[in-house]
């Protein structure tokens, strides 16, 4: 700026000039910043607790993730422990239990997606077809409820209901003249029970999203369908379902982004050594190796692997979702 005002000064003068101008600008900026903070300091006071909390409880652990590449010992601490490179990852990928945990995570996720994803959509479509408002509201109130119930209670109910001697499931099998099955010790039964209890707990609550989408469907579409002589079944398939398709796609993408997130808390409560074969997932493996057996560095490496894959999935899903929602939602 100031260079243009002076025509013909020496280079030295120019340098001094511009240096002074820079200093001047910096001073002015500092003054402006000072003014800003003097005027707006309250906002920063309001923000400070949030920042401190995030640094202390979410970002500091990220710094601690370095133990995945270290021979961690409690006595030497995170910084004092020696680096060992990818040793833990090499160990993990030679560990059959870890490979099994990856496989189980993918399989359980897949079945949860296959059966758990359509369930709330079907439920929402069915709710929408109920004309009696009292009946509809009562049913909704009941099916939303399990969402608010603790995982421990869900596990308690599952264990009680599937117990070989006392459980209702085996009582029914007995009525049908079948032998009782000790479901929770049978590896082949673990996934159906886990996926089933997940649907039981969440399908109702998740249907809210789709019900909201259905509520936004343009009524004139139904009116013209009626004029065309469409039955309710046809309207459900040809009007309602296509109308909520964008919501379905978005939810599917979000779900795929969270593919590695299996409800490991419920698995910890339901599995036992006899069912590890089909039940042990990455997070339960981390829990056992790290928190129960104290192999923190190895378990942190497994966690890092999990987090990186999850991050890639979420980012991919976000990118796709943005593209999809721009083109097909509006």
């Amino acid at each position, binding site marked *: 700026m100031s260079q243009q005002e002076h025509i013909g000064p020496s280079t030295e003068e120019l340098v001094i000039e511009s240096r002074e101008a820079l200093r001047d600008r910096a001073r002015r900026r500092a003054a402006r910043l000072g003014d800003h903070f003097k005027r707006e300091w309250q*906002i920063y006071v309001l923000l400070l607790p949030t920042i401190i909390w995030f640094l202390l409880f979410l970002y500091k652990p990220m710094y*601690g993730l370095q133990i995945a590449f270290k021979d961690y010992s409690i006595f030497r601490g995170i910084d004092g422990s020696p680096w060992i490179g990818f040793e833990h990852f090499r160990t993990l990928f030679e560990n059959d239990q870890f490979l099994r945990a990856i496989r189980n995570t993918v399989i359980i996720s897949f079945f949860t997606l296959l059966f758990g994803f359509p369930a709330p959509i079907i439920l929402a479509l069915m709710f929408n077809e109920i*004309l009696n408002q009292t009946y509809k509201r009562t049913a909704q109130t009941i099916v939303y409820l399990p969402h608010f119930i*603790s995982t421990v209670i869900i596990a308690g109910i599952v264990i*009680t209901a599937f117990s070989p001697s006392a459980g209702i499931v085996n009582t029914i099998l007995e009525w049908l003249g079948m032998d009782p099955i000790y479901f929770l010790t049978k590896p082949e039964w673990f996934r159906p029970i886990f996926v089933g209890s997940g649907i039981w707990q969440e399908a109702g609550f998740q249907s809210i999203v789709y019900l909201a989408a259905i509520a936004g469907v343009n009524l004139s579409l139904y009116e013209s369908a009626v004029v065309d002589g469409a039955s309710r079944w046809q309207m459900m398939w040809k009007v309602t379902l296509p109308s909520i398709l964008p919501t379905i796609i978005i939810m599917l993408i979000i779900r795929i982004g969270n593919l590695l997130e299996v409800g490991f808390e419920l698995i910890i409560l339901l599995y036992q050594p006899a069912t590890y074969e089909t039940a042990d997932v990455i997070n339960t493996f981390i829990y056992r190796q790290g928190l129960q057996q104290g192999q923190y560095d190895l378990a942190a490496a497994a966690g890092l692997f999990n987090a990186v894959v999850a991050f890639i999935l979420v980012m991919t899903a976000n990118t796709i979702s943005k593209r999809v929602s721009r083109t097909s939602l509006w």
Partner: protein
Amino acid sequence: MANMNLYSRGDKWFVIANMVLVGLFTISTLYPFIYIAAVSFSSGFAAAAGTVVLAPVEFTLAAYERVLSEPQFWSSYANTFIYTFGGTAVSLLIIIPGAYALSRPQLIGRRFWNLFVAFTMWFNAGLIPFFLNMRDLGLLDSYFGIIIGFALNAFNIILLRNFFESIPSSFEEAARMDGANEFQVLWKVYVPLSKPAIATITLFCIVARWNGFFWAMVLLQSEDKIPLQVYLRQLIAELSDDEEFTSTLIDAAYSVETVTAAIIVCSIIPVLLIYPWVQKYFNKGILLGGVKE
């Protein structure tokens, strides 16, 4: 939506079949709760023999007497209340100001700070580094650790920030004219206007706290600090252990099954009590605000 004009005669079978199916799903949702309640009021002998189906068999309050006479039950119950209400209060005290600050256009580095918060939704250090961090901070086996360590998450902050951003700035102009500072604008203008969003977050916090067990189980060692869910988990672990072990505990009046069922009932009751209030909010579709972004 439910327009009677659209309802033709030929669709009757469809409507009825649909009602029956919804009814079946509803009953299958409700049935486990009825079953657990029935078990809790049955004799230990009947429950262990598997004769309970719908109503209590050999009705008795023995399991409840056993549960309520257990000091551990009361201390766990009290702890759950401390974690739930203490934790929720701390969460709101930090989230509301934080979300407000993040919604202010004049905040320097606003984009950065929002990303700083949102990034934790996509990348998480995981169980082990979090645990070691809590240990290094000296927060193992402490009430304070449970309350502060889980006070925030990105989702709740973003939900509330979005709500604050949607409030037109014309609402605060009158207050600004009167010389209100940021604290006053937040407290007197934004908080009253954001009641539904704050209620939603309060609900999320309460439900998460009431139900949380994993970290309480990992971080707490003293029996006198554990919440109800961890205590319940200990009982359930006994239940799912060897059948032989459970059968030794069978008493004519109560068994591990009936005692566990009784605790489950006691732990669900507060949820049922606030449930109508909860419903009021998700009917308004506010819970969906977070799903959209």
